């Protein structure tokens, strides 16, 4: 049985934003990531699940738990953690238990248990201001855990940290989720964080869900142009091109033009498509090397940046811009053929922007 079913949920704000008609199913024990640009409604969706906002229409059903008080089912880890600064770490974690009038030994036992699960091994009499960023995160996790919620909601818990700490705590969060087995719904605007953390992810835009799936699935088979360009850095190239009407089933040489971008693109691999399409290619999939099953582009380079592991080359192909991440530098002004393997080509409908083929 699903942990959580969201059915046709809508919540609109006068100032714009919110979510429209969102339906999602979240399975138990999974780390489910909601990702999208700012203003896409991901935080609103999380706050609706938490009960901090009321929906205009639609429903949120908690699977087995049925109709218990929402506040007993879920817990939330906020951006900046929202720890109570005037209380010790212990009192922060114990706050919910004291409200429930548990006995002192019971409170001590459950705080210790939650601290253990959150890998929080510090003097719990210290206040949040005396703790490091990582320790604060662990206090926030223990505070969320101590009530034994079924679902833990996390609202960009890493977004205000600097890069090294962020990457360290990301790994810790993932291990925390594995260890506790809790269902976690995690909101982020960072596509990299979403890819590395998620068991499942939902890409949102303008209040609606654009695609749901496993990270490699979403990255390798984006459902539309928005998802294709939002997930991945540097951005996926999107070029407009025309497929010939006839399609040949046998692989051809790269010099045989079978797919045109203003007459400058040569495509080795015929395909069950024709007419005008949008072709998406990630910069890291473009190389100098051709192979038997690949597309070729005659690119004129305009600018090259050294980016450490490679060279980010900006080129024009028949008047359209293309970026390639190459392992060798190239002089601006030169023209060379670039190749991309069949599996790295993404086709989208030019009208609906949806994936085809």
């Amino acid at each position, binding site marked *: 049985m699903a942990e959580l079913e969201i059915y046709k949920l809508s919540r609109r704000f006068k100032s714009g934003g919110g979510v429209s008609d969102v339906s999602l199913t979240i399975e138990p024990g999974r780390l489910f990531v909601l990702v999208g640009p700012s203003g896409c409604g991901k935080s609103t969706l999380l706050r609706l699940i938490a*009960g901090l906002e009321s929906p205009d229409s639609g429903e949120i059903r908690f699977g087995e738990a049925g109709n218990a008080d929402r506040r007993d089912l879920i817990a939330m880890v906020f951006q900046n953690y929202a720890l109570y600064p005037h209380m010790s770490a212990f009192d922060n974690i114990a706050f919910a238990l004291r409200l429930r009038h548990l006995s002192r030994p019971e409170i001590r036992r459950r705080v210790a248990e939650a601290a253990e699960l959150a890998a929080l091994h510090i003097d719990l009499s210290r206040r949040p201001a005396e703790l490091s960023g990582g320790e604060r995160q662990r206090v926030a996790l223990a505070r969320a855990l101590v009530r034994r919620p079924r679902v833990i909601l996390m609202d960009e818990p890493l977004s205000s940290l600097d890069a090294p700490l962020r990457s360290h705590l990301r790994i810790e969060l993932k291990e925390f989720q594995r260890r506790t087995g809790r269902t976690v719904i995690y909101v982020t605007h960072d596509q990299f964080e979403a890819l590395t953390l998620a068991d499942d992810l939902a890409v949102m835009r303008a209040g609606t869900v654009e695609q749901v799936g496993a990270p490699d699935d979403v990255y390798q088979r984006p459902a539309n142009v928005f998802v294709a360009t939002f997930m991945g850095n540097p951005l996926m190239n999107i070029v407009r091109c025309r497929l010939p009407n006839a399609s040949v089933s046998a692989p051809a040489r790269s010099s045989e033009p079978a797919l045109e971008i203003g007459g400058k693109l040569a495509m080795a691999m015929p395909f069950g498509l024709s007419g005008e399409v949008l072709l998406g290619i990630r910069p890291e999939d473009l190389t100098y090397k051709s192979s038997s099953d690949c597309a070729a582009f005659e690119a004129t380079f305009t600018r090259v940046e050294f980016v450490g592991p490679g060279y980010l080359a900006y080129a024009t192909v028949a008047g359209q811009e293309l970026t390639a991440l190459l392992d060798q530098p190239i002089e601006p002004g030169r023209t060379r053929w670039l190749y991309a393997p069949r599996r790295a080509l993404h086709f989208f409908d030019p009208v609906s922007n949806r994936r085809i083929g």
Partner: protein
Amino acid sequence: MPGGGARAAPLRFAIDCLAVIGAAVPIYLLIKQAITPDLESFAWPPFWLPHHLTASNLKSVFELAELRSALLLSVIVAVAAAAISTVLGTMLAYAMARRERLRQTGMAGVTIARLLPMIAVALPLTTVLIRAGLYDSPTGMGLALIHAALAIPTTALTTYGAFVAIPAEQEEAAWLDGASPLRVFLAIDVPQARMAIAASLVLSFILSWDEFGFALLIQVTNRTMPPLLYYYTVFGDVGPASALALVMLAPAVAVIIALRPMLKSGFIAAPRH
């Protein structure tokens, strides 16, 4: 700014001196007048050092029954005014910090209250107090209510910043932890705003303690300290008046000494987070 350091130095020094002199000179003169015979106070050129010492001013003032009752009444009025205005001001500030619409109304009210000349409002208020039987009350409750009303803008502005500085997420976290809205206010907001609440108690106490116009108008026979001091001053008894003034300075000096470490932050005068 480069070079600014050197150029600003004389200005800075001048302002430093001004501040020290501004605070120290009046207090020094008070003490001097309190312990010297009256004639010396008006001598010209003035004596900057006391020539003759006397304890009679202080002694005569403390022997006055009038002083004891005025002191008691002033303390009662100031404590009541501070308590009432801090409780109401804190609630108003919290409501303003959490509700956009109320913040605007509240700010407009506070601004208007600061702009209206109190002396002009005194007259109708006095009429209202006469009708309510609180005019010249021996417990000073009419004056305390007026002082509380006068102090609400100050207490509200003093605590407002502290409540605004508490992120809404902390309240949401406490609510999700199972707390009622009242419990959230008492367990999360009040403890964090405690310094500002203390500051607003101090400021509203001093405001009432020092208030002169309404005290003069309302407590015509059951006098508080400021009118008493005024009468002594007007009757030309500079020595006893100075001794009275020193008594009036006592709570302020006590607060200043107690809060010495916090003075430099300016927190009491203008709490900001």
